[in-house]
């Protein structure tokens, strides 16, 4: 295949030569043309995010050609006859125009909206993959932080985007945004006035959000995507532990032609599925909501899913407000707006560094951890997922109450309790499951795999023969790093170890103990000890399997 004398066709050779003579690019191409991309289904989640972003740029550019970011009031007279004669903003009228008069306009609007939803969902799924497999560890902390930044910006980008059509639902979202901004102590009213150019809704907010939505934020995200990709390319992929994926090497198909073709197909799949949804699954039918009217609202108003967590937090917060010395602090708005996402995003951003500090692990990691082998991390992740998920569900408590015929207030109380209890239970249960899986792994290594073969010994006892796990399976299981024996906090001379001194040192050693104290050590099989026992029928309970 790789014939050293093979020449690319003239046209390609010419173009390559042209660039090479000016940029010296061939060195770069040579080094990267066969760059290895390890295979794992979960590595595609980030790709979906990337491709959704590209689709957002494409469809969004199309929409800007007709959208008018203006709050000037006009009287509608157009193809959607039900709203003829109704006063509305130019933004809303132009969105109706895109929907009903521009061919492909509705399709692009719907693909754009679905792509935004998919963008955020795939980022979240990708982040969960990275978290649960420990792929954020050194040297990849920077990409982890960039990812959190992109998700945060994506929330703003989405909020601003669905606010642009100036329909009743989006105006309600803006109203809530305004109410939250106003509640900020000291500067809230100033932020409110400066953001809206006066009192709500005014005439400035849509043009301003438009600028942020189509220029500033996508520009920032594009920059971060580029940095994310370049860092990933430079550092190479992580890989799940197998025989051929190690800290020293990476195994997989070359970028050109295999990965290139696969990822190209994946882009087309993403675009195809989004086109399918844009064509057949209605989203945000703004013509049914009507133009924004600050005195009107419809029941069951819901934001897009990624804002649901904030919505839920606002709903279940008790009505705490303090007025003292002529000033008002609305904890009922501030706490839900800042605390849950502050904990989740702040915690996620700090996590790689906290983990390294607690475990004292400053090594580079290219091979991922199986979630069961880091029970505290996995349990914390599941606790965060539960916390987020419950707040998210709470954002639809009226819909839940309606569909399941429950008392609305009861659903609120349920979530008020569940976000604490559920989060705690998720931690405990996940940790137990991880340790159980570790025990099973330890058993597989020390004891072997059930072969399904029943043996009868000469004295008539039956036992099932166990076989050692296959090499690949053992490699995967033995990828677990056993807890290192705890360093004594004082050495022989009674001198405390350097990192255990002071309150921080105490905290660190306590956390380090919590990280590993119930670890199940898994050692390589030492010659079939347990295996012999079974064959000799010393463990008759095995028969029950």
């Amino acid at each position, binding site marked *: 295949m790789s014939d050293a004398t093979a020449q690319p066709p003239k046209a390609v050779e010419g173009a390559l030569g042209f660039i090479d003579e000016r940029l010296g690019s061939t060195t770069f191409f040579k080094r990267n043309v066969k760059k290895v991309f390890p295979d794992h289904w979960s590595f595609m989640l980030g790709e979906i995010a990337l491709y959704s972003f590209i689709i957002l740029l494409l469809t969004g550019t199309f929409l800007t050609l007709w959208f008018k970011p203006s709050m000037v009031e006009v009287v509608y007279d157009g*193809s959607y006859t039900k709203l003829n004669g109704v006063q509305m903003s130019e933004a809303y009228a132009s969105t109706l125009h895109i929907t009903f008069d521009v061919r492909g306009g509705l399709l692009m609007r719907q693909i754009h909206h679905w792509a935004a939803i998919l963008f955020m969902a795939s980022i979240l799924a990708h982040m969960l993959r990275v978290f649960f497999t420990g792929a954020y560890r050194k040297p990849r902390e920077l990409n982890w932080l960039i990812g959190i930044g992109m998700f945060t910006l994506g929330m703003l980008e989405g909020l601003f985007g669905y606010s642009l059509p100036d329909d009743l639902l989006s105006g309600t979202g803006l109203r809530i945004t305004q109410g939250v901004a*106003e509640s900020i102590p000291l500067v809230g009213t100033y932020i409110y006035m400066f953001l809206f150019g006066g009192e709500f809704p005014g005439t400035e907010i849509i043009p301003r959000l438009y600028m942020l939505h189509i220029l500033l934020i996508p520009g920032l995200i594009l920059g971060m995507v580029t940095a994310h990709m370049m860092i990933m390319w430079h550092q190479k992929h992580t890989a799940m532990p197998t025989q051929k994926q190690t800290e020293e090497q990476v195994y997989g198909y070359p970028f050109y032609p295999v990965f290139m073709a696969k990822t190209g197909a994946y*882009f*087309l799949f993403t675009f195809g599925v989004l086109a399918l949804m844009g064509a057949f699954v209605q989203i945000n039918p703004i013509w049914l909501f009507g133009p924004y009217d600050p005195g009107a609202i419809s029941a069951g108003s819901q934001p897009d899913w990624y804002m649901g967590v904030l919505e839920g937090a606002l709903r279940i917060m008790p009505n705490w407000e303090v007025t003292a010395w002529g000033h008002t602090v609305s904890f009922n708005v501030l706490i839900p707006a800042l605390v849950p996402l502050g904990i989740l995003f702040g915690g996620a951003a700090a996590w790689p560094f906290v983990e390294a500090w607690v475990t004292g692990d400053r090594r580079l990691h290219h091979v991922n951890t199986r979630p069961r082998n880091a029970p505290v991390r996995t349990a914390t992740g599941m606790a965060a997922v539960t916390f987020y998920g419950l707040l998210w569900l709470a954002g639809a408590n009226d819909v839940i109450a309606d569909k399941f015929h429950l008392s609305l207030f009861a659903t609120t109380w349920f979530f008020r309790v569940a976000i604490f209890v559920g989060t705690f239970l998720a931690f405990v249960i996940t940790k137990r499951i991880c340790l159980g899986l570790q025990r099973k792994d330890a058993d597989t290594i020390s004891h072997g795999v059930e072969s399904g073969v029943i043996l009868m010994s000469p004295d008539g006892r039956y036992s099932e023969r166990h076989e050692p796990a296959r090499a690949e399976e053992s490699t995967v299981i033995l990828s677990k790093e056993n807890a290192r024996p705890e360093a004594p906090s004082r050495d022989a001379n009674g001198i405390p170890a350097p990192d255990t001194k002071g309150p921080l040192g105490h905290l660190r050693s306590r956390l380090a103990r919590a990280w590993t104290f119930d670890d199940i050590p898994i050692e390589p099989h030492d010659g079939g000890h347990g295996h012999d026992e079974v064959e000799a029928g010393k463990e008759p309970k095995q028969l029950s399997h």
Partner: protein
Amino acid sequence: MSDDNKETAGSAEPREGGTPGRVIGTPSPARDKALLAEEEYPAPAGAGEQLDEASAKRAERIVAAFFLLAFAGSVAFIAYYIGWSGRDGGMHGVTRARESNFWLGGMMALSFLALAAGVTIWVRRLMTSKPIVQERHELAADAETRAAFAADFVQGAEDSGITKRPLLRRTLLLAAAPLGLAPLVLLRDLGPLPEKRLRHTFWGEAVKKAQAEGKKGVRLVVDGTNKPLRVADFSSPGGMITVLPEGLEEDVPEEQALTQTAKAVTILINIPEDEFKPAKGRENWHVNGIVAYSKICTHVGCPAALYEQTTHHILCPCHQSTFDATDAAKVVFGPAARPLPQLPLAVEDGYLVATSDYHEPIGPSFWERG
């Protein structure tokens, strides 16, 4: 595993030489394929180097069929757009928008998905690349390079003189500091200062204007129709409507109309007099149980638009703050901390009028509210 008990009844062949034969009544080894599969590391998706030419030919034809389908999809997309979507003066209205959406979207999806499927089959069945191994390289530079760079860095700083000329350094920092603030100053004109804006609504202006004309207060007009409201028109208990001050439509510049509405919008509720508990100091703010509250929720400003006749609860659909209409809109449940502000009502010539502005700021709380 050195001593497999060959002599035991029903035993399988020794382990060496492959998978043991299955004994009847035991689970099929196939079930545990992940653990008992052949020793070799399973290759990821994709073919090996050797292709069976017959099956490759078949695969090629399948891929080509998908590519042709994609071609057909794109052509149909263009053909529909040019040839059909523009008939009878182009796409206008719901029916044609839906039709065009289905056709354009459907063809687009077909084209992308067929292309994607074709490429995927091509990769999996026709590409002969083999998986390869690449070394991971140390990311950090070696100590020597680091030291050399550090030396260069220090040398450069020394050469520039910035380390030994403090006056230069300090004045440079001084010069840079206000430069960073300048863009923030530029943002001042984004909006007006809050001043007292949040403390009054259009009701105040309208009442002042009406009282200057010798009237008792400003009439309430029904949102939507802008008709003044007679007490007699709103006499049945249990009713709830949205009202605005008269003159908001005419006296306010058009671009201010929504902003003023957003503050002045008010709900009017007719509560049976025997259930109504007027708050202290507001005994004459209602008219036979007809009472007016700000419609803007005191939580984050959604319109508190739902009214339950049987319980007299006002509910905000956004975050479910619930207020008791019979009891000065006291908070019954939910995240709102304060009652909805109440508007003083009276009757003049049979019409409902408001006799003053709200006595407190309407809407969400803010720092300066007090």
